[in-house]
Structures are given as structure tokens and as C-alpha cells.
């Protein structure tokens, strides 16, 4: 699995301009949301958590699609499977790499959100932790579906199509937790939200790892 992770990180490093581009995309999305809602500062602040996660979600499909683009160009993934490489190792390598990238992306979007939506917080470590946990919830099923959709035509379309409904619980909990951090948490509910998010992550990471082999083999 270390070999697989190393490969992923190397690939990501080679296409690091991509990261920059995805970040700008995410920031643009945040900007557009504020246009969509109109110039109401209070409402913007109130929905900032939701918009942050929507922005991250939309960016994530780009990251995921790109991550399988390299695999599919010359069927490199098939090449690895025929060596044989363990599909589970390949899955966890890629899912981890995607998780890292999404987490970094989410962290990078925080200042953008703060500036655009006036949504500051004094609980930054909690926010970063929430983003990491939420990103884990995106990357696990995202990597699985990315593998599936990369093999067919119309990949850009089908990936979000399949992924978005699934993401709802992770997204909801992340949004909720983030808004507690931003808007204040009078009832100390944050801990239970983080637990919930962690539980989703555990379920997805286990389940998707099991099923990946079936998806990438003919």
C-alpha cells in the first residue's frame, strides 16, 4: 500500500498546478454562491458553512476525475492489476492521496470563506479537524465511484450523479459541525457531530475498500 500511496503522491506532485486550479475553482464557486444569494451579509454568514461544503464537494469531483484520468489514459490501472497488484492496496493508496488533497483544499478555502462571507471563528483547530473528517467522507466513496465512472463514456457527468446523493450524510454532518464552529455552539453539540462524522467515515472506508476490487476488474 505504501508503494501505491507513493505513486499517487508522485502523480499529484507532477500535476500540482491542478491543485492550484482546483483551489481557484473552489474559490470561484464560493464567490458565485454569494452572487446567487445576493448581498445580504447576515444570511451569507449564516449559510457560510453550507457553501463552504458545497464548494468543496464540487471541487472534489474535479480532483477525483483527474485522479483517474492518469490511470485511464493508457490503462495504467489495468497494467498494475495485471502485475498483479492488490486492488485493496491500490484503493487505499488512492483514497488516502485524495483525502490529503481534499483536506488541503478545504483548509485553503477557509480564509476565502472568512473573507467572502465574514465567517470568522476562534475555534480554528476544530474547523480544520471537521474539514479533515468531512474530506475523508468524500474521498472514500468518491474514489470508488471515480474508478467506476472513469471506465465509461460521460465520466464527468456520472461521477457527481452517483456521488452526490451518497455524500448527503457526510455533507450534512460537516455542514452542521462547521456552522456550530462558526455561529457558536451553545449546547456543546459539536462533539457528537464529530463522532457521527467519524462513524460515517469508518463505514465508508471499510465498505468501499471491500468493494473496489469488484469494480476495477473486468
Amino acid at each position, binding site marked *: 500500500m505504501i508503494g501505491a500511496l507513493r505513486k499517487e503522491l508522485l502523480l499529484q506532485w507532477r500535476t500540482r498546478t491542478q491543485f492550484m486550479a482546483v483551489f481557484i475553482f473552489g474559490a470561484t464557486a464560493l464567490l458565485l454562491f454569494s452572487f446567487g444569494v445576493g448581498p445580504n451579509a447576515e444570511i451569507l454568514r449564516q449559510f457560510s458553512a453550507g457553501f463552504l461544503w458545497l464548494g468543496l464537494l464540487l471541487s472534489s469531483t474535479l480532483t477525483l476525475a483527474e485522479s483517474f484520468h492518469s490511470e485511464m489514459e493508457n490503462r495504467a490501472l489495468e497494467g498494475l492489476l495485471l502485475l498483479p497488484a492488490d486492488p485493496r492496496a491500490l484503493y487505499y493508496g488512492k483514497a488516502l492521496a485524495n483525502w490529503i488533497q481534499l483536506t488541503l483544499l478545504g483548509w485553503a478555502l477557509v480564509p476565502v470563506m472568512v473573507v467572502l462571507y465574514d465567517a470568522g471563528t476562534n475555534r480554528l483547530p476544530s474547523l480544520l479537524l471537521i474539514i479533515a473528517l468531512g474530506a475523508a467522507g468524500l474521498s472514500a466513496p468518491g474514489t470508488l465511484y471515480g474508478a467506476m465512472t472513469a471506465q465509461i463514456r460521460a465520466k464527468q457527468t456520472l461521477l457527481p450523479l*452517483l456521488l452526490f446523493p*451518497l455524500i448527503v450524510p457526510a455533507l450534512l454532518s460537516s455542514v452542521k459541525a462547521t456552522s456550530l464552529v462558526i455561529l457558536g455552539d451553545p449546547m456543546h453539540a459539536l462533539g457528537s457531530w464529530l463522532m457521527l462524522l467519524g462513524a460515517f467515515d469508518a463505514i465508508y472506508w471499510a465498505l468501499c475498500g471491500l*468493494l473496489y476490487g469488484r469494480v476495477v476488474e473486468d
Partner: protein
Amino acid sequence: MDYGNNRFPRTPYILIAIGVALFLTGSYFGLFVAPPERYMGEVQRIMYVHVPTAWNALLAITFALVCAIIFLFKGEFKWDARLEASIEVGCLLAFLLCCQGAIWAKPTWGVWWDWDPRLTTTAVLLFAFLGILTLRKFVDDPVKRGVWSSVATIIAYVDVPIVYFSVRWWNSLHQLQSSPETVSSQFYIPLRVNAFAILFLMTGFIMLRARLASLRLAQEVAPPPMLAEEVGETA
């Protein structure tokens, strides 16, 4: 491999006939015999289809999960056909559920839609499984199609209860849920009758639909036209 039997399928039609009969009975009781509800009045009668539809939609999707798991282990195409059929019927029921619910919600809550756990879960379920049906359209290879939709079904199915709970948690701080009413026995009979009516209808439709899928699959997975002549050997 099982390509589905080729007899004329009588069972599904019988089931559908029973379903229609039951549905007419249940609806008669629901519409004319049961008294109107105290607060909501006549609109409430929609409950007699709404609740059975909900139960059966969940049942259809659960059956889809069973098919998915069996297909992954056994690889028999009849399970793929059943999977497709039950997802399709499940989606149809979920869609009807949303429509009925919306029709009910407008006079009751004043809006077509609200984000309470049940509704959210239904919407997520509908979209998740619609996505799977769409995926199936894009995959030409029957084996891949079967495996992928099974995998997606399993994940989506696990997802649905999670959505339910997370939405409940999510809403619990926002607003109170509409309180569940105790169901009196006058409402009980048509509800039960209709539940079985839709169950029969659903089973009938799934069987018919699965047969159709089997027939199409039979062409896709038929064995090759074998050569009669002896084949050479290299040795």
C-alpha cells in the same frame, strides 16, 4: 447461467389482478367508509395510499439489496434482472410517494416540500437509485453492469439509514418534528388492505419487469454459435 424461463408468465398477472382488486376494496373503504380526519379533513384520505406506498417502496429497495448481494456472490444473471426490476419499481414507488406527499403537504403544511428526515431520506433514496439506473444505461457489458449496479446498490442502501439518522439529528435542533398521530382502527383496515394491494401490484410488476430484463439479458449473454467441425490442436 439462468436466462429466465420462457413459459407464458401467468403468476405476475394474477398478482396484479389481486392487487387491483384489493386496491379497489381498500380505496372504497378509505374513501367512503372511513370517517374524515378531525384536523385535516378529506385530504387525509391520501394516507391510505401514501403509507402503503412508503412501506412498499422501502420493501422494493430492500429486495434490490438482497439481489445485489446474491449477484455479487453467485454471478447469476437472473439476480441482475431482479435487481434492475426492483430498483425500477422502487424508484417508481418512491417517486409516487414524493408526488402524493407533495399533494398532501401543500394543504397540510402549506408547502410542497419540507426537509424533515423522512422526506429527505426519500429524496436521497430516489436520487441515489435513479443514479444507479442511469449508470446501467451507460454500461454495455452485462457483467460489468451487473457488478457495478450491485456495488452501487449496496453502498446506496447503507447510505439511506445513515441519511435518515443524520437528518434527524440535523433537524432536531432546528425545529420540532410533526408529532406522529395514533392511528385508530377505522383508519387501520383500509391502510392494511392497500398495503397488501400495493405489495401484490409491486411483486407482479417486479416479476414482469424482471422477465423483460431477463429476455434482454438472454440475448446479451447467450453462448457463442459453436463450430461443428473439429478444432485443431497445437501440441
